[in-house]
């Protein structure tokens, strides 16, 4: 565990490590290897790193071609372009081909707050979750990011890695073992389940502490694999509390909140509240200002929990 390493740095280091272990690992970029922190890979393995230029829709197709002849391509750009610019390519050339492509979406959610909605990634999970053959991951901290990269390099199949840029606490010790598809209990509790993913861990843990002060016992569950997400793995936690809250830096349509709601509706029939970005195009500002403005904040979450428990 290292408190000073952020997720982008962890990714950058892990990519070089994976490159050492896997001689077939190839890195592709679209003119922003600096922003994607892939430059150390270029320095370590110049013969295995390619900047294709400002050509985001070519990332999934070139990566698919590389994968189909046995390479392990990790392609990198801002998440909003990594997913949406080449979405048809991801569906047709990556997933339908079951090509061993690793899509790495950087600065996801509202990480690039000041850049405005053109650079905010709030529909990527919605767009990808219905595409077969694809695994969707998002780490809560540096250690999980490191282990996810190592796992992705070994796994034979398409994966989307959603990376935030926000500073997050280290919640995992190095003895933590990432297990794909398995939500992880971060805090135990009996009244309400708080399902979070990615950098929303900060808000989730703050909420848990605040609820504790008010005599409400909340469990915090890290859903770092958004797909596949088996019902029993959510039910296992959901059955232990009376209600659930989901928190995500993503549209409330189609992301973590939707995924957990689907399982709750079919298997638990307990009250659930989604905290996320409403159905709108956002605006420019600091990420924290934006999250507060759009209702992804401690006050709204507290009110949400109180309203949920009143229903129980």
């Amino acid at each position, binding site marked *: 565990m290292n408190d000073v390493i952020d997720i982008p740095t962890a990714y950058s280091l892990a990519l070089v490590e994976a490159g050492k272990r896997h001689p077939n690992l*190839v890195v592709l970029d679209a003119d922003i290897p600096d922003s994607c922190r892939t430059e150390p890979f270029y320095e370590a393995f110049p*013969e*295995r790193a*390619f900047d*294709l*230029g400002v*050509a985001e*829709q*070519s990332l999934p*197709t*070139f*990566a*698919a*071609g*590389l*994968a*189909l*002849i*046995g*390479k392990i*391509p990790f392609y990198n750009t801002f998440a909003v372009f990594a997913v949406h610019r080449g979405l*048809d*390519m991801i*569906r*047709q*050339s990556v997933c*339908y*081909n*079951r090509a061993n492509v690793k899509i790495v979406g950087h600065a996801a959610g509202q990480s690039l707050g000041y850049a405005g909605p053109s650079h905010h990634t709030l529909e990527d999970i919605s767009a990808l979750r219905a595409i077969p053959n694809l695994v969707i991951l998002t780490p809560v901290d540096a250690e999980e990011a490191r282990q996810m990269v190592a796992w992705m390099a070994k796994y034979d199949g398409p994966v989307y890695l959603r990376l935030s840029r926000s500073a997050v606490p280290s919640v995992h010790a190095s003895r933590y073992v990432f297990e794909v598809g398995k939500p992880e209990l971060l805090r135990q509790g009996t009244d309400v389940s708080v399902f979070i993913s990615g950098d929303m861990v900060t808000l989730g843990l703050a909420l848990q502490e605040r609820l504790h002060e008010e005599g409400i016992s909340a469990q915090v569950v890290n859903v770092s694999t958004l797909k596949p997400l088996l019902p029993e793995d959510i039910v296992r936690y959901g059955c232990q509390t009376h209600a659930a809250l989901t928190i995500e830096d993503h549209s409330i349509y189609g992301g973590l909140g939707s995924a957990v709601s689907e399982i709750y509706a079919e298997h638990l029939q307990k009250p659930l509240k989604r905290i996320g970005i409403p159905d709108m195009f956002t605006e420019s500002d600091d990420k924290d200002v934006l999250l507060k403005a759009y209702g992804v904040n401690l006050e709204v979450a507290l009110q949400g929990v109180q309203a949920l428990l009143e229903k129980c």
Partner: protein
Amino acid sequence: MKTPLESLNNPALRELQLSAIQCRKKIIEMGYVNHIRLHYGALMSMVEIMMALYCQWLNVDPANPNWQDRDRFVLSKGHGAPALYVALWMRGFFAEHHFQGFRRLGSILQGHPDRLKTPGIDCSTGSLGQGFPVACGMALGAKMDGARYRVYCLLSDGECNEGSVWEAAQIASNQKLGHLKVILDRNRKSSYGWMAGRNDVEPLAEKWRAFNWAVFECDGHDFEEITTGLTNLEAVTDQPAILICHTVKGKGIPYVENYPTKPNILLTEEKYQECLAHLDQVESELRDE
């Protein structure tokens, strides 16, 4: 394989011409027997190209479809799948009975190429303008490996309306993808009809040259010219190369070739027999030569 022009003697040439007739017969049979509308125009324009590739040129092994050193082939114009299926069948990748289930649930022969279902297919395609960039990625990997094989891709002129084609074309030349050999089926019509004056791509050869590709042109229905073209592609090693094959939509079947609108037709018994009779006649004349 890779039979050069000097080895293409009269018997070999005639075999290729006969294979093209057989391919056309099989394609119309696939549509007629299964009661399916096929892109007959786009299929007939690519027949000689596919026969040259699979009966004469590509280093592939039907007994070992995943052979590491095989030439790769990507059908970027995925709607041409029936012609690819006939070529694969003729090369021995699967048995003839699979045509009975063509485009049906459970069949190894889907509406568009599916690499996970059909032996011999290297890339699933169907969304226009995507097979070509995937082939570019394959060629990039081949270059990294110093591979002996080549990556072939059949692209349509209609696909050259897709921005993804030109984005990839630019990257391919920047990356000096000498393993990449593209064949362009220049039949001058896209789905909705003639491209001239509507969705034109001219000057096509100049465009590819401007993108720093080696460009060759030939009659895409003449096996000797196609062979020369493939030989020319092979000789290029330090940049991507393209062979623009000038073709005719619906070639070889007058009913399709002269069809006033889009010839995605459901063949009636009468029309099927008429097309078949024409092909029989051409075959008979060829055998009598």
